[in-house]
């Protein structure tokens, strides 16, 4: 059985990944960004600690939502960095690579875990809506990646 804390763990790892990647691309980001992401990852540790300390107090619904919110924030940051690279910095090639190698896999993995969690929990929460939103987001993201990598797809029509 999956625990809702898995989302916090996943999101915390996402922030660590963002921290390292923004450090590698430091000339394209503000200097403080990698460290801010480290702090954000530490907040994931805080999430897990709170869950552990209040495991018997918090019900599973509450634990799901605050962990899912943290995951959503993590994914939003991944997409935001992608958009920042594409729109603000005009580094299209880097944005494409980021989209294909970071954004799409992380969103897809998150969808997998959320869907799996909902299935194992017997959909106690309104997970259908969450799943649909995430699947739709992944579909749009996949199409966007395809278009970004091959702009000729649009021109053919």
């Amino acid at each position, binding site marked *: 059985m999956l*625990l809702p804390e898995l989302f916090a*763990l996943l999101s915390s790892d996402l922030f660590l990944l963002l*921290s*390292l990647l923004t450090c590698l691309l430091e000339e394209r980001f503000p200097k403080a960004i990698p460290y801010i992401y480290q702090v954000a*990852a530490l907040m*994931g540790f805080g999430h*897990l600690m709170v869950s*552990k300390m209040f495991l018997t107090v918090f019900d599973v619904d509450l634990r799901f939502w605050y962990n899912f919110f943290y995951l959503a924030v993590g994914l939003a940051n991944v997409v935001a960095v992608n958009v920042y690279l594409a729109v603000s910095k005009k580094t299209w090639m880097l944005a494409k690579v980021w989209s294909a190698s970071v954004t799409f896999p992380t969103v897809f993995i998150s969808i997998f875990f959320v869907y799996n969690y909902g299935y194992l929990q017997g959909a106690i929460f309104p997970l259908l809506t969450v799943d649909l939103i995430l699947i739709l987001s992944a579909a749009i993201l996949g199409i966007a990646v395809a278009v970004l990598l091959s702009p000729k797809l649009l021109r053919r029509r």
Partner: protein
Amino acid sequence: MIKLKIIKNVRLKKSSKFLILLLASILVGTANAAIFYSLTMQPQVTVSAPVIKFDHADDEPSGSTVDDAWCLLAAKSYPNATLTYEQAVNLTNTDSAPHSFMLRCISITPANGNSEVGNWTSIKFLVYNSTGGYVFSLNFTVSSNNWVLAPVSGQTAYYSIPASTSWSIRLETLSPATATEGKVCNIQIAVDVQQ
């Protein structure tokens, strides 16, 4: 007045920054994983057959009930005559490894101070090994309407029973000549087994 000196000239190289962030990431990631692992540990308790179980014996008191995990011995005692059940019940180690066990008195009625205690002189539980050798005993003797346990603590030491071996419990009862017929004494004894 305290002056704060800001060091501006210290600039870390990109590789140094990355190394620091990488180490911090490993630390945070490991801590997160450890916390998550502690959350996912779920104990599993499986019901299994008792390793040392009670077994029917040749000299079992009539009306007794013997189950794997518990037994009820409906023994008698006679006034001024020792009644001995040579093999009242057996204890069998069903495991392929030796295990230690002990006898421990949980309760006895009538309680100390009750005049009915005087209807018994002694009730002894003696444990014998598979070759018929005496191993240990738990005895209840009466002194002035009080039960005197031997060992005094009400529990024996641990004794190791070999693998796949049966030991027998010999039950000896004795009542004084003045005992009243029909009086009942209930003794509850636990068999504590070390895994």
